[in-house]
């Protein structure tokens, strides 16, 4: 049996702000297999985004362990964490988070440059994969929000990561656009065999996933 792509054991997170402590995650045991599409659901403030940031190594856990590809990320240095993000992970945010001053094409190219990839046509292929081949030269502000989210997805998948982390990727979209973005996610998942962890508030969105994890009050409620 192959080991899971992501595995957490007893993961806890408490935010400390001076003397104020906010416990957010308690004892999270979670596994995501390679190429698995997981949806995370739960009420607002239950810690979904926090969990995702820990999985994406943007945030460290207060206690517990997190394994990525079988390696304990708790032992990673800052540089190693950055490298894992760079090589294995792609982020898609609710608010797209594109760089506003440069074109869509360059947004993807910047990511490629940070990743140190120099593969010809990679940006074009990523644009084609999200159906935006003809929109590369537009700046984010000149694109509709559905199109902006497509560019963000193209940026997240252009380096063929093992895991795409999406925090409410359809939260800012109307139902028509949301539907098309979800179709895009399942397509990418099917064709590229990439694992996806998607946070969503919509049952419809969750239904495209292989598995749905429900969270409440910082715990996983359906194990």
């Amino acid at each position, binding site marked *: 049996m192959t080991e899971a792509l992501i595995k957490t054991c007893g993961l806890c997170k408490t935010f400390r702000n001076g003397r104020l402590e906010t416990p957010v995650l308690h004892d999270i045991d979670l596994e995501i297999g390679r190429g698995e599409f997981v949806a995370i659901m739960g009420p607002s403030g239950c810690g979904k*985004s926090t969990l995702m*940031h820990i999985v*994406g190594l*943007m*945030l460290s856990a207060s206690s517990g362990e997190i394994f990525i590809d079988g390696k304990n990320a708790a032992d990673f240095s*800052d*540089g190693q964490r*950055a*490298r*894992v*993000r*760079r*090589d294995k*992970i792609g*982020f898609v*945010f609710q*608010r797209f*988070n*594109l*760089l506003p001053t440069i074109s869509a094409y360059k947004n993807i190219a*910047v*990511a490629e440059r*940070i*990743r140190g990839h120099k593969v010809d046509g990679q940006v074009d292929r990523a644009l084609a994969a999200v159906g935006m081949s003809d929109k590369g030269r537009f700046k984010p502000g000149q694109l509709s929000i559905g199109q902006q989210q497509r560019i963000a997805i193209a*940026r997240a998948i252009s380096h063929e990561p093992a895991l795409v982390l999406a925090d409410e990727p359809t939260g800012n979209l109307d139902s028509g656009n949301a539907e098309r973005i979800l179709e895009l996610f399942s397509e990418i998942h099917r064709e590229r065999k990439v694992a996806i962890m998607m946070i969503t508030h919509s049952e419809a969105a969750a239904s495209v996933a292989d598995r749905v994890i429900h969270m409440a009050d910082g715990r996983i409620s359906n194990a």
Partner: protein
Amino acid sequence: MSVLAVAIAITLLLILVGLSNGTLNEVSGRIESVDAEIIVRDRHFDLGSMSGGTLWERQADQIMEIEIAGAPAVERVIPVFLGRVKLAGLTQNVFGVCPEDFAYFAGPRRMVDGGLFEDMDAPLEAVEHFTEQARLAEQDRDYRVTPLPLVIDERLANAGGFAVGDHTSYGDTPAVIVGIIETGVAGRVFAPINMLRGVNGIAAQTAHMFFVKATPGLDTGNLQLLAEEIETVTHRAASLVANYGQILSANFRNLTIFVSLVSVIALVICFLFILVTMYTMVLERGREIAILQSLGAARWTILRQTIQESWLLCSLGTVLGILMTYGARWLIQTMQPLMTVEIRPFWIGVAVLIGIGGGAISAMYPGYLALRHDPVEALSFD
């Protein structure tokens, strides 16, 4: 914008230093051009304003009598009476000298145009002459007064557009330019000593400086001895002409400190400016930095980028500042041709070090801030 701030600070530093160094070196270079070994002046004589403290004829005689190792040590005492005149928009010191002594000042320098003046026999005669002239001129508006003859150097002539025969004035007394000499002589303006005394209402043979020409063959040690001996017999300050530069800068230490202080303040302000610029940049770009981090840029890369950016600002500013310095020097010397701005490679080196070093230092805090930035927060909220 911050590039300009750095550039202005660097320019200020270089111009202030260049102006004070240039002026000091130019003045001391000119004094050292006199063909004499020792300069004697009253202890209260102010090198800056060239005023105060008088020397008497009797002291010249005392100096002439000094012997070293049983032989006369002094060949000649050259008195200089100083006056002031406004020419080419700036107040100039006038060196009142005996026509016979002029060769000690001219050295190898040629008279470019015109010739040397003649003097009256005694200061008293000059006082009476100019008093009488003034009285006559008051009675008769058309009365032509005999003017005070002046020899000026070429730099002043060019700066003021003066030619031989041009009329000007010394205070209320008319003056005329009779000769123009190559630049490099001790004074920019020379006048006959007795007439200059007379114009100033001095009837005695006083002076402000003595240049002492020692007998040939005295070595430095003996010259030092002679200077000490002069101090003993005259109770006046005597120093080697060759050391004049050092004496002058020691005298102007306060000025030098002031200039350095102003420059340092300018630089500190300019680095604060960079710091604030970089600081706001980091704050404004919080989201961008976070996005880059989510894409896998290490924090170290981001720190490096911040420092690089401010380093670039400072380097550009330094280069621009150096260019602006040359521009400013050109401007100053075009508008005030008598000012000397000296740009030395040493100070350019200092400016480069300060600009670049300061850039790195003032980038530290914003860089640290970029490191501390919470990427998750920046990505989640507006």
